[in-house]
């Protein structure tokens, strides 16, 4: 299986605090891979490093075989590697439809095309995706006025609109009503199986990640603690200790 993402020996410190220490992992194309670990273990930092939010101190990150550790966020995004944010970020003063429309892929956007209107297909696709996440009726409301859970769904829909090859999801079920989590998991699986997007998911909800992921990496104190199939991780004593120790 070809890896779409290869992280090798990545280390990152902030001041004196080590966020990531010599992390190496592989995400095969088309799979759903999980990233777990207690709070402060460096999961979001790793995501930030991968998408170019900050430069790394050491190591290499390859997306589709190309080295991306020196590239900037917009360039990496245009290569098809997107991320969602833990605190959920959307464009608050714009309507849901506008949020979706401006999330089209920008890789071919040029000086001349930037002044054209969006073709009708864009609106149709946006409406389709909003329907997919259950936000169709709210599509004309300002995104900032949606509930937190609805904004999370919008963010997910926007990511799908951008036609990424791989999506890094930072705690996609956090703050979502438990009764709706199943439908979200279902949508994530469909995005992966029907559209073919590789998913790399940070999750705290063990039930969700065990259900979703085919392979799981566990971080603790900035280091890679363990990795394996969900069953192995669930029974891994060091993983259990790390979580209990963190509590």
């Amino acid at each position, binding site marked *: 299986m070809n890896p779409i993402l290869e992280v090798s020996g990545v280390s990152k410190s902030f001041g004196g605090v080590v966020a990531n220490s010599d992390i190496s992992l592989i995400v095969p194309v088309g799979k759903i891979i999980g990233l777990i670990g207690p709070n402060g273990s460096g999961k979001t930092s790793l995501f930030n490093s991968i998408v170019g939010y900050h430069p790394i101190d050491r190591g290499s990150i390859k997306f589709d075989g190309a080295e991306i550790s020196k590239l900037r966020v917009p360039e990496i995004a245009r290569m098809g590697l997107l991320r969602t944010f833990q605190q959920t970020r959307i464009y608050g003063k714009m309507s849901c439809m506008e949020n979706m429309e401006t999330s089209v892929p920008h890789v071919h956007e040029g000086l001349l095309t930037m*002044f054209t209107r969006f073709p009708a297909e864009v609106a149709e696709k946006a409406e389709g995706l909003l329907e997919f996440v259950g936000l*169709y009726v709210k599509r004309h409301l300002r995104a900032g006025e949606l509930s937190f859970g609805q904004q999370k769904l919008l963010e997910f829909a926007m990511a799908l609109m951008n036609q990424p090859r791989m999506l890094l999801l930072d705690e996609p079920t956090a703050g979502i009503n438990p009764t709706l989590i199943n439908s979200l998991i279902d949508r994530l699986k469909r995005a992966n199986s029907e559209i073919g997007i590789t998913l790399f998911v940070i999750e705290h909800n063990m039930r969700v990640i065990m259900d979703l992921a085919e392979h799981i990496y566990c971080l603790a104190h900035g280091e890679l603690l363990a990795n394996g199939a969900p069953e192995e991780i669930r029974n891994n004593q060091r993983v259990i200790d790390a979580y209990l120790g963190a509590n």
Partner: protein
Amino acid sequence: MTDNIRSALPYLLIGSAGLAAPIIAPNFQIQLAMLWMMIILALTWDIAGGQMGYNSFGNILFFGIGCYVTAVMQRELFFDIAEYANVTGKVVTLTSYQYFTGFSLGLALSVLIAVAVGVVLGSGILGLRGHYFAICTLGVGVAAGELASGWEFVGAGSGMLAPIYPGEANEQGLFYYYTFFVLAVLCFFTLKRLYSSRFGLAINAIRDDEDKAEAMGIHTTRYKTVAWCISGFFLALAGGMFGHLNNFIDREVAFPSSTFGVWMVLMAILGGKGTIWGPVLGATVFHVTQELFWTYLFGWQRVALGVLIVVIVVFFPQGIMGWLRERWPEKFGETVDTDASTA
């Protein structure tokens, strides 16, 4: 059919009022011309300001470039530097052909220089965010004024004259009224078109969350530069016209940071920033108020304007359009679609 007429109605009304105004009220030609200029100032500020979240206090830079470049072009095309004198010396008189050719070429060059400056300066300045951008642009605007007041080529502290209009005295007012009117209309419809295109949504996205916009692959640097340069384009034209209308140009006329420079921000906020009609409404209300202050409070009008600025900013920051949107969100299309079926 009636829908089209209804939506076109406000434009037709304003358009005809605009065309007829200087003829109906010839004594107010200059003030009316200034109204259109204020509308341009507010609209151009709002491109980078209200629509994109980059609140500039230095857009006056482009205005001043237009002022000076257009006048210098006039001067250089038809007169030797050595022959030219400042306010106390010889006055420049041109033929009709010379005047209008010089004027047009001057405007064209102003735009080129303004956009070039926007690109070069913008490459650094547009990397700043929030209040750092605001104060940096303030510094740029004020620095430009200081540089102009020291540069002999443009008359230094004494300023320079724009050529006398080749025609009757009242014709000048009429001519510039219509040039400002046309420019304002052009500006308005260009922006209206831009805001309904990809460009409009992208700059709104930058305003709402620039990091998110970058994370979604938007060419933020490109959009920011283009937005600022578009305002530079129209401001340079407005400046070129204003310098000629005023006949006299010095750093106070060209780079008035504490008047036009901050008024453009206020007008957009008063009307409702981030909307297409907001700056138009705000500019109209502000300009009328300012003219009233001038007439009735002369001497204290600047103080009164300062008070007005504080009042608007503190008590009415959402502006007219913002207030309307809060009262009647349905009229702005922000409703839940109850007719549609749920997923």
